[in-house]
C-alpha cells in the first residue's frame, strides 16, 4: 500500500494533536447574521493579521487545500485568482486560510505556500496558516473551498459554497453563478444578500483531530 509509507510521517503530529486536543470550543461557530469571530492569523509572508484591523472593509475568507480537486478546479481554471484580483482591486480584504493539520492533505510550510502563491499567480491579501484549525473551527469551516463574506460592520453576510456547481470539472466554472461575487455586489449596492448561505461543497477540511 502506497500510503503505509506515510504513516511514520503523520503519526507523530496526529499523536501531538490528540494530546493537545481538549474540550470542544464552548463558543458556537459563526453563522450568517452573527458578528464575525475575531482572529489573529500568521501569514505565509511572515506578517500577522488581525481581523479587527479591517473594520470598515469587506473581508472574504477562503478555505484552501492545494491537494483538493474542488480547490484545483478554481485555481487551475484561474477562477480563484481572477476573483482575488477583482475584489482586492475594489478594496476587499481577502484571506486564504489553510486549516490542514501537519501530515494531512493541504498542510504546507510558509515557504511552500509562498511558492504556490507565486506559481499560481494567486493574489489574496494574505494566506493565513492555521494548522491548529483554530480559525477553521471559529467559523465551522467544513470544506475547501468554503467561502465567508464579512461586511464592514464585521457581520457575516455570506457563508457557503463558492458557486452553484458542486463539481470538480473545470468546464463547470464558466456557467456557474458565483455566490461570493453576488454577495459582494449586492451588499455594496446596499441590497440584501439574496443567497446568504449555501452548502459549502468540496473536500472536508483536514483538521488535526476528529473530535470537533
Amino acid at each position: 500500500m502506497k500510503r503505509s509509507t506515510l504513516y511514520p510521517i503523520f503519526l507523530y503530529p496526529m499523536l501531538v494533536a490528540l494530546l493537545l486536543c481538549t474540550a470542544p470550543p464552548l463558543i458556537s461557530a459563526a453563522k450568517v447574521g452573527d458578528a464575525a469571530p475575531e482572529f489573529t492569523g500568521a501569514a505565509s509572508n511572515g506578517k500577522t493579521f488581525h481581523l479587527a484591523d479591517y473594520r470598515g472593509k469587506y473581508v472574504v475568507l477562503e478555505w484552501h487545500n492545494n491537494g483538493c480537486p474542488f480547490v484545483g478546479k478554481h485555481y487551475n481554471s484561474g477562477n480563484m485568482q481572477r476573483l482575488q484580483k477583482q475584489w482586492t482591486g475594489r478594496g476587499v480584504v481577502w484571506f486564504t486560510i489553510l486549516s490542514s493539520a501537519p501530515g494531512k492533505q493541504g498542510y504546507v510550510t510558509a515557504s511552500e505556500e509562498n511558492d504556490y502563491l507565486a506559481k499560481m499567480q494567486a493574489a489574496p491579501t494574505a494566506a493565513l496558516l492555521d494548522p491548529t484549525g483554530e480559525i477553521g473551527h471559529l467559523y465551522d469551516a467544513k470544506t475547501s473551498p468554503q467561502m465567508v463574506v464579512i461586511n464592514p460592520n464585521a457581520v457575516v453576510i455570506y457563508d457557503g459554497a463558492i458557486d452553484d456547481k458542486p463539481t470538480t470539472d473545470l468546464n463547470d466554472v464558466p456557467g456557474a453563478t458565483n455566490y461570493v461575487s453576488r454577495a459582494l455586489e449586492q451588499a455594496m449596492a446596499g441590497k440584501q444578500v439574496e443567497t446568504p448561505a449555501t452548502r459549502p461543497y468540496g473536500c472536508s477540511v483536514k483538521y488535526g483531530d476528529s473530535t470537533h
Partner: protein
Amino acid sequence: MLDGLCIKIKMQGRNPSSRFPRALTFGVALLLCAASAQAEGTPIPHGTLELIAENQWIAAGHKFDLGLHFQLEKGWHIYWVNPGDSGEPPRANWQLPAGLAAGAIEWPAPRRLASSSIVDFGYEEAVLLIVPISGETSMAPQQSARLGAEVKLLVCSHEMCIPGKAQLSLTLPIKSQPPAPDARTAALFTAARKSLPRPAPKNWRFSVADANDSFVLTANLGRQITQAIFFPLAESQIENAAPQKLQPVATGFRLTLRKSDQLLKPIERLQGVLMLSADQAYLVDAPLSKSGAVRSSSIIGIHPPQSLKEEPQQ
C-alpha cells in the same frame, strides 16, 4: 475486440497519487481483460468500475437494466445522490443506440460516512448503481448494440479525494426471443434491488413538526421502532453531522433532526430515505405539519425525487 463483453478501457482520471504511468495501467487492464472470459472493470482511482447488463441480450419490446458496478479499495468511498457535507455523486453520460434512453440512477440506501466535523453519505467497498434503459431500438435481430457511458466520479478517503473519468462500453446482441438473465450478473442485480429504498407501506404515516432549531419527524408504523436513521434527499435542510435523537413510541418513533445552518427559508416537506435496518430502507416524503403558509420555491440544491424511484415489481 478481445471479447464481446470486454470493457474498452480509456481511463482519463487525473490521479496525482498514481505511481503507474497511464500506458502501463492501460496495458495491465487490457491483459486482465484478455485473460478473463468475463469482463473486468475499468480502473478508476483506488478501484474499478464496470458496466454490466442484467440480461444476456436485448429483446425487442423489453425494457432492461444496466448497472454501474463500483469496487473500491478499503478506506475509499463514492457518494450518494445527496453527498452530504462534502463530495460529489457520480454522473453518467450515456451513449446509446438511437431509440434507447437511460433513466435516472436508482440509488441504494447510503451509509453515513463521518470524518472530522462532517458527515457524508455514500458507499464503501462495492455498490451497483442500476440504470433502467427504455425505448425501442430500430436495430434488427442478429445485430449487436454498443452501449456506452462516460462516468465522471469522485473517489475519496477520509484523507483525500481524487476525481476520475471512465469511458465504459458493453456490446449486447439483439434477439427477437424474450430476454434471459445473465447468470454472471444476476446475484449483483438481486442484491442491489434489495438495498434500494422502497416506497413506505400505505398505512404508515409520517409528519414533520418545526421545533425551533430542529425538525421532529414523527412516524406511525403501528409498532415500536428503536432504531432509525434518516438520510435527507435535499441538501441544506438538516445538519448532517448532528446526532439524530430517536425516541421510540408505542406506534413508531419520533426522530429529532437538527436544522441546517444553511436553511434560511421554511420548507414544505422533508424528503429522504429512512433506514430501519441494513435491508429495510423506505422513501419518506413527509409534509410539515405546523408549517407557516410561506412557500419556499427554491430549496437549494434539491434533487428530483424520481431519481430514487423504485424498480417496478415484475
